């Protein structure tokens, strides 16, 4: 107990453990973001997190819960709106993303008693991670990884060919909804780490980096987790030694890894893996 306590009492270790937990879920989920071209969707959900924070203060809810509820509601709204095809999806997402962000900022300005660190919300405050945050992250990881493991074949099939999957009896619509709910959950738990503006980076960059080296979907998910770990560990040490903000440092490390893998792999072999 005492060792665990010592570790958890150290803000640096808390940050590292939390960051690795986020990387663990962002890896496989990020693959689906890349495969299904949902990057902009992830961004929209993330932007709505700020509105969730404002609402949490208004109704005195725990921040994570408020963010989770807002993301879920927005995901449902998007699902409904996207059935009506008058507006292109990216237009719709653009409207909702920035409106949610703006409404969140305006709502917060109406609460002068609430003192919040806006920079921390937008760009992450990894070093301020507390034990409660760790509980959220690892609770979320258990839920998401279990769901992904159980639903993997159906999710993969409906990503590869939606109609073929439907003919074969895969509940495509229900899986789409579940996937959106998982995004909402990952945003609620990852927000503190890299902030609402950089969450999508944690989903996309490790997955895209992994694509270069993977020849099966499962390999890509596992490698994405690995590259996420590298980004978190590298970003934190960068932050420690150079006194840079932790969230952006993590993203910068992820990007550097991406460049190295794509540049290096290009030089090693002319032919791309499967």
């Amino acid at each position, binding site marked *: 107990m005492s060792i665990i306590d010592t570790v958890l009492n150290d803000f640096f270790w808390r940050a590292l453990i939390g960051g690795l937990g986020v990387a663990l879920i962002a890896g496989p989920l990020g693959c689906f973001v890349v495969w299904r071209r949902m990057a902009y969707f992830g961004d929209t959900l993330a932007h709505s997190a700020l509105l969730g924070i404002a609402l949490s203060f208004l109704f005195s809810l725990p921040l994570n819960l408020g963010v989770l509820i807002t993301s879920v509601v927005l995901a449902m709204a998007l699902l409904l709106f996207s059935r009506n095809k008058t507006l292109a999806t990216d237009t719709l997402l653009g409207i909702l993303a920035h409106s949610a962000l703006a409404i969140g900022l305006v709502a917060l300005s109406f609460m002068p008693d609430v003192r919040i660190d806006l920079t921390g919300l937008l760009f992450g405050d990894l070093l301020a991670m507390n034990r409660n945050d760790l509980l959220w992250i690892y609770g979320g990881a258990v839920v998401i990884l279990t769901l992904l493991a159980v639903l993997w074949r159906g999710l993969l099939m409906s990503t590869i060919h939606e109609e073929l999957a439907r003919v074969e009896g895969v509940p495509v619509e229900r899986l789409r909804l579940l996937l959106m709910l998982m995004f909402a959950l990952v945003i609620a738990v990852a927000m503190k780490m890299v902030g609402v503006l950089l969450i999508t980076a944690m989903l996309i960059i490790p997955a895209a980096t992994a694509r270069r080296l993977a020849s099966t979907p499962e390999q*890509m998910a596992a490698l994405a987790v690995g590259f996420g770990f590298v980004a978190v560990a590298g970003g934190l040490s960068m932050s420690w030694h150079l006194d840079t903000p932790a969230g952006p440092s993590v993203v910068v490390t992820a990007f550097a890894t991406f460049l190295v893998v794509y540049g290096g792999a290009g030089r090693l072999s002319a032919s791309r*893996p499967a």
Partner: protein
Amino acid sequence: MDEPLVAIENLTVRFDDRPVVDRVSLVLHRGDIITIIGPNGAGKTTLIKAVLGIQAATSGRILRAKGVVIGYVPQHLSLESTLPLSVERFMLLSGQPLAACVAALDRTGVSHLLKASVHHLSGGEQQRLLLARALVRKPDLLVLDEPAQGVDINGQAALYDLIRQLRDELNCGVIMISHDLHLVMAATDKVICLNQHVCCSGHPADISHDPAFIETFGRPVAESLAVYHHNHNHSHDLSGNVVGTDHSGSANEHGECDHEHH
């Protein structure tokens, strides 16, 4: 007689009040090959989506036999290049054991591609992979959406011939969409010419004389089909070998006959 695999009664599908499929009826039994032809926007794809059960009907009924397994061969596999996927993995996603997957790939002639990436297949290989993917589920009903798209002309004949053989082996029903009028005529029992409504239907040899068919496709097409029918009763592979006899159950056995000799 045996129960039909699929029976469609008076099916209408409307998008925004515009009827895309208008009062279409059809019945498909085991062993039947029905081909749907028709101009662009005629509702062919919507009709087979209704057969597949992934398109809701505005009115009318679609009856499928109980427990019928459908093998669906979509037009193509438009896969994100970000998703790494081998032929083997794609086949295994059907939930069938590897041996069955390899056997299905063997049957469609692409088992040598087992370890290849799905992204690096040619049009013809992709179609044969999709056909194997449908086959591995041992379907009672095979539904194909333009199976010969992106396949060269000789490959097309071989592909339609393969579909006919599979119908015999699996004793399944086949319903397909095709634009390859000549080849369709040779490989099918019944043609339905769709232009929202069924403009005509029947045996391939009869339909090319049907005034409604001539009106939809124009006289040159209809005449070329009629001519084709009088003169041709088998298909060839690339080297000119006879690869199969065609419609009408003619007892004409070609055996090893090479068409080039006189």
